[in-house]
């Protein structure tokens, strides 16, 4: 067990460092002069020189890379060129929108997708099953930003129940903030719910054919007890894995959805930083997103290895 953990940790650190290196090379080495990218074509030479000094571009690339890594580890992510505030502070403020949004989307997707998948499996090859599978196909095909627009059209413009966009901030009270996040969370949750419904159904159908389920039935256990106590627990293992693996898809979705609903979150920040050529913020945010996706994958693999010893040996 310890060697499994040690090997996974080494792989995690290597992947994180690899990601950092790719991001650094892509955004600081390949553009040639990041200061020129930030300031644009018509920048005054003095301004360029000052920014180069501020970004530490007078130092060699390996030194800058190490300085960036040590900055990440100590929480010093540099100063945003456009906002003139520390990037760490910007990320902290925007996180207060993105984190609740992502969490709400995961909760919604799970509470819609998993019961639907179970319902389909319990009614295998009946109309309910077909209806759930049609929902899942549509959920995968409908772009979540279009679904978001349709929700705005119906619930904000049509019925006036929710705001069409924007975020009042948590200081305006939790009710107003939650109200502003609900439609975007639904839009973000739709494809996830569709995937979870398909995976839960398929996993449950597999588990129901296992020997231990037949044994439980042969013992005379009632069907609901067999399904809930014996089959469900086993069927949920792949569901948890998929939820973890879908995390990077959720992040990508959040970048678009935050733009649809004009939410001042991390996704909108990264997009704005690109249009403003604020490479310092882009670099830190891309690293944050990639790092989060890598960490979640690592956690899922670890939990999976803990639950199923066969996987521990296999890796």
């Amino acid at each position, binding site marked *: 067990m310890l060697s499994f953990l040690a090997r996974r940790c080494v792989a995690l650190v290597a992947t994180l460092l690899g990601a950092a290196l790719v991001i650094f090379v892509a955004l600081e080495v390949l553009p040639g002069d990041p200061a020129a990218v930030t300031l644009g074509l018509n920048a005054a030479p003095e301004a360029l020189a000052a920014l180069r000094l501020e970004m530490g571009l007078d130092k060699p690339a390996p030194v800058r890379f190490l300085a960036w890594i040590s900055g990440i580890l100590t929480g010093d992510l540099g100063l945003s060129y456009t906002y003139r505030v520390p990037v760490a502070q910007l990320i902290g403020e925007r996180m207060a929108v993105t984190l609740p949004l992502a969490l709400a989307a995961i909760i919604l997707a799970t509470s819609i997708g998993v019961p639907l998948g179970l319902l389909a499996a319990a009614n295998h090859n009946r109309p309910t099953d077909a209806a759930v599978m049609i929902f899942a196909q549509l959920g*995968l095909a409908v772009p979540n930003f*279009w679904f978001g627009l349709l929700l705005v*059209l119906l619930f904000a413009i049509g019925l006036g129940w929710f705001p069409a966009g924007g975020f009042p901030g948590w200081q305006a009270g939790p009710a107003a903030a939650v109200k502003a996040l609900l439609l975007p969370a639904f839009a973000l949750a739709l494809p996830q719910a569709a995937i979870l419904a398909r995976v839960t159904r398929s996993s449950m159908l597999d588990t129901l054919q296992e020997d231990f389920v037949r044994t439980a039935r042969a013992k005379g256990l009632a069907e609901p007890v067999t399904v809930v106590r014996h089959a469900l627990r086993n069927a949920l293992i792949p569901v948890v894995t998929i939820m973890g693996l879908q995390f*990077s898809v959720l992040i*990508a979705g959040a970048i678009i959805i935050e733009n*649809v609903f004009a939410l001042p979150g991390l996704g909108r920040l990264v997009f704005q930083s*690109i249009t403003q050529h604020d490479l310092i913020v882009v670099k830190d945010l891309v690293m944050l*997103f990639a790092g989060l996706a890598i960490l979640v994958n690592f956690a899922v693999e670890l939990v999976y290895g803990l639950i199923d010893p066969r996987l521990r040996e296999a890796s």
Partner: protein
Amino acid sequence: MTRAGASAPVPAKRWWTGPSFLIGFALTGVIVAGALLSYVWTPYPPTQMMILNRLKPPSATNWFGTDQFGRDVFSMIMVGARNSLAVGLGAVGFGLVLGTTLGLLAAIRRDGFLDNLIMRTADFTHAFPAVLTAIMITAIAGPGMLNAIVAIGILNLPYFARLARGVAIQVWTRDYIQAARAAGLDNVQISVRHVLPNVAGVIVVQATIQFALAILAEAGLSYLGLGTQPPNPSWGRMLNEAQTFMAVQPWLAIFPGAAIAIAVLGFNLLGDGLRDAIDPRLRRSR
């Protein structure tokens, strides 16, 4: 000759008559036909602005209405289909050719240096959300269709590499590979002549499904302004522009979104139907 009651082979249902395949084929047919037709005919030139005719609802003269510049939405959707399919073809082609080649190379010596290097790189690429890759590329090279193709193509790479490797590893254990080796063929020749034909089927199925994902990704990037650039119509950007006028003219937000959903649904169902044909064990309906 079969005896009654004996295990006579069940006649296989023709896969091309399955509902998934038929619906998928019809939906993708509509999109592909619209895209091809747009090369020779559209109701109006898609970039022609008629300010006096702006924001008109659907009618006999403008089937899907007109946008804020008076452009015909139906014509724009037809040309948008062409751009979506072009990005899909480019991105999936890029991922398929490069990914399959890498997967086949990795399978030659399982757990060897090359295998580990390729597979760890694939894992790493997989952890990177596609939008982030596109964002990085755009931050350096600027937005555009070609950059979108590269970004979505990179996202496709690990899928094809893993799949090709997985199937190829099984093929390498077969007797005819030993025979080919005895006949003096080297690893690359065996990969091309004997492994690739066995991998091709699953790769084609995966390509159909990846095509659907590529169309979705392109629409997302275009919505953000990072994909196909004006004046070239694209479904994603049409949705972005529609948002401003949605309260007054809701159909502007409905038709381009429906076009994306139809294309994605079509390719997904087509992929499901083809998968049933190639490997009936994977049939999801069970």
